[in-house]
């Protein structure tokens, strides 16, 4: 199998997965019991007409799919409804046009809500990922290089602890510690900073990012250290490393020219997968530090049963995970030629 065909096949599979997720995502929220028009709002003031108004506004008065009732075998063939007027068709049509519906709760387009939040999350996990990759890889190499010394055991010990710390707990701990140091514990910026010079605003955001980023970095750094170390130890035990050593190369040369590139492969996989999942995994950090990102949007939407937002966010996460995996696959086909061979 040649490389182009492998790439095309993987891309096509990813596309079908996304279509599947789109369909699943629609029905997932509609099989839930209850009436979205009444959920979350219990108010004796809401009369029947008012509920009907809400239902019409969000298109909930329309049938979910055409002939839904006729799924009952007795009624098959009785589809009077215009298929273009079903909730599913409207959902699909909106999706193609880049619309994700209107939030029940905030009365704004979901695309706008998720759009603003996404950038905040990217900022947080972007910095966090870069820091944890650099530090994790460095510690991992260091631990493998100093294998079977007390330095390695310390590094592995610390990493294991860091990786297994409950994110929520570590975040709370850092919050208490940080607040006594005068660090901001909530939000992305100090309210009212928008009138200050840009440089000062950035400084303010950086200050607000300190605690959440630190939490993120500590958690992921542990994981990356462990993976880098074990992968490098594997590579270092290979025969070609022995022959390199026999050639008289020193440790730095061996690491740089022969070991590191090969040892990076597992780390690339994990980073790619993490990139997809951290959007969802960052929920805890964002809600502890009230960081206005995608994670806290999901948290709020769950509490308020804001299905359009949840539906949009799930779709976004699913697509990120799928694309991150595709990216990892594609990177692999270039890093390791064996991958394209079936």
């Amino acid at each position, binding site marked *: 199998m040649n490389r182009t065909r492998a790439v095309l096949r993987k891309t096509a599979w990813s596309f079908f997965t996304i279509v599947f997720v789109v369909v699943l995502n629609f029905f997932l929220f509609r099989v*839930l*019991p*209850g*009436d*979205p028009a*009444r*959920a*979350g*709002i*219990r*108010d*004796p*003031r*809401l*009369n*029947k*007409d*008012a*509920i009907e*108004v*809400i239902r019409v*506004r969000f298109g909930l008065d329309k049938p979910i799919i055409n002939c839904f009732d006729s799924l009952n075998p007795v009624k098959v063939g009785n589809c009077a409804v215009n298929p273009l007027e079903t909730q599913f068709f409207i959902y699909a049509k909106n999706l193609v046009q880049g619309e994700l519906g209107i939030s029940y*709760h*905030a*009365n*704004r387009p979901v695309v706008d*809500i998720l759009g603003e939040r996404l950038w905040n999350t990217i900022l947080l996990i972007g910095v966090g990922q870069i820091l944890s990759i650099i530090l994790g890889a460095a510690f991992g190499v260091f631990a493998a290089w100093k294998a079977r010394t007390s330095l390695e055991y310390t590094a592995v010990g610390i990493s294991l602890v860091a990786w297994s710390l409950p994110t929520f707990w570590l975040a*709370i701990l850092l*919050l*208490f510690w940080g*607040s*006594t140091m*005068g660090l*901001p*514990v*909530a*939000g*992305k*910026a100090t*309210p*009212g900073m*928008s009138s200050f010079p840009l440089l000062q605003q950035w400084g303010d955001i950086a200050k607000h990012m300190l605690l959440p980023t630190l939490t993120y970095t500590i958690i992921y750094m542990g994981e990356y250290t462990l993976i880098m170390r074990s992968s490098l130890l594997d590579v270092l035990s290979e025969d070609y490393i022995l022959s390199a050593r026999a050639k008289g190369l020193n440790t730095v040369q061996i690491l740089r020219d022969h070991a590191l590139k090969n040892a990076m492969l597992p780390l690339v996989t994990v980073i790619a997968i993490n990139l997809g999942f951290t959007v969802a995994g960052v929920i805890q950090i*964002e*809600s*502890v*530090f*009230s960081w*206005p990102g995608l994670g*806290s*949007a999901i*948290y*709020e939407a769950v*509490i308020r*049963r804001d299905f359009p937002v949840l539906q949009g966010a799930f779709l976004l996460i699913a697509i990120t995970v799928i694309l991150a995996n595709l990216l990892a696959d594609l990177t692999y086909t270039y890093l390791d030629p064996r991958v394209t061979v079936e």
Partner: protein
Amino acid sequence: MKKKMLFTILIAALALSACSGGGGQAQPAIVRVGWAGSPDTLNPGMAILTEAYTIFELVYDSMYELNLDGSFTLSLAESANVSDDGTVWTFKIRDGLKWHDGQPLTAEDVAWTYNLYKDTPEYPYLNGYYTPYFDTIESTPDNEVVLTLTEAIPNIESQLVFLYILPKHVWESVNKTEYENVEMIGSGPFKMAEYVQNEFVRLTANKDHFSTPPKVDEVIFQTFENQDALVQAIRTGQVDMVTEMPNTAAESLKADENIELVVGAPLAPGVTDIIFNQLDPENCPEGGICSGHPALRDRNIRLAMAHATDKQQLIDVILLGLGNPGLTLIPDGLGVWYNSSLTDYEFDPVKANQILDDAGYADTDGDGIREMPDGSEPLTFRLNWPSDSINAPRMSELLAEMWGAIGISLEPQAVDPDALTAQCCPAFDFDIMIWGWASDPDPSALLYVYTTEAIPTGSSETGYSNPEYDELYTNQQVELDFEARREIVWQMQKMVFDDVVYIIPFYDANVQAYRTDRFTGWITDQAKVELSDITSLVLIEPVK
């Protein structure tokens, strides 16, 4: 050379920045309020959350102002006259009022706004409840608003208090339902300066306000999703006031010498209720399942359960003491409307057992659970609550223990709130539920919940039906004499209390805190606690 020049520029820049920073100007007095929410929308017609109403209260004016003691005072109007038959209200709007953008605010704006609320069915909360009695609204050249009602009603103040007056010149040309209203041109004591949803709301003082110009310069409401962070923020001085906190934090904050705790009924009082499905199968609404346990239709059972409920223990364990025992859905925070003459059923399991024995509910098979008098079914009730409730799981454990002592067993289960809504009403597919209501300043909304009419609409959770009560409800809606209306409202409460329609374990208290070293003058001695209300925020001033 280059280096030297750079150095000179640097020094000059430093000197300049020092000048601009310390020009001898007084620091603006900024009050920072921490809260756990954010407005859902700033469009007054579409908003649901109390956070949105807090902001409306500060930025807009309405015809009446709701005071912390539950009374109303005229705000935008200097006088109100009512016709003899009570249907025509004439409000004389103050002269010289201005919108935040400098345009004049006149009776025309007021009339236009009321018509907007009345004619927009997409504003379900306002339209369905606050404007149904509005017939016509007109403005006169004398700066008066003439409001004609379809029939005379006693509670015009509470109908008008949440109808915030909007500027016609802004709202005329926008889409009424989709307009996000982030610029929020109002006329109230505070102006909208900056709003980022779920992050913060920044308001600046309107020092020219006609009645209540604030003494501070700015108020910032900052959203904290995590209540521990909120508590930590007031402790370290990152915020000056918090509108809510977990009850568990109250004790430790009390110990802080710079922090003062305020506990009392909230501005929008809430009530936690234990709901008995006592729907008569004959009244089963269309599409209802009506699977309630027949025993719960017997007042004896409900009375026995009331006697077996130790409310003080519930308050001590669940609220850490921060609440009051409840009687009916009308909470003590509603002031005069709360029937304070009722005496609660005493906690007395012996008496409870006696009631059940006398009514013929005996434990015939000796398993510790009583059966129906005809032996058909044991007294085992399903107990459900919304799974997002923090207090209900603990309460269900305590109730199972308390009622277990009188031979009643429970099958407790948390249910997804959506599923519970579907299960609740008008389906009536449950036995007992733990839930709650929030209250309007007027008792009418919550009294409606007990009416027969509310059974098919889904507002009645108990299926309680009493023609006498229904009649009283209609009467109180049209009784214009305040004292006579209060009398009826009290009578209605007595009726449902005697019928043990609900058990109200407690009325939750509001716990708020402020820093004593930053601002002074907070209102803490009123019937209701709401430090973020306009009443407090216009009074406070920086500590000298």
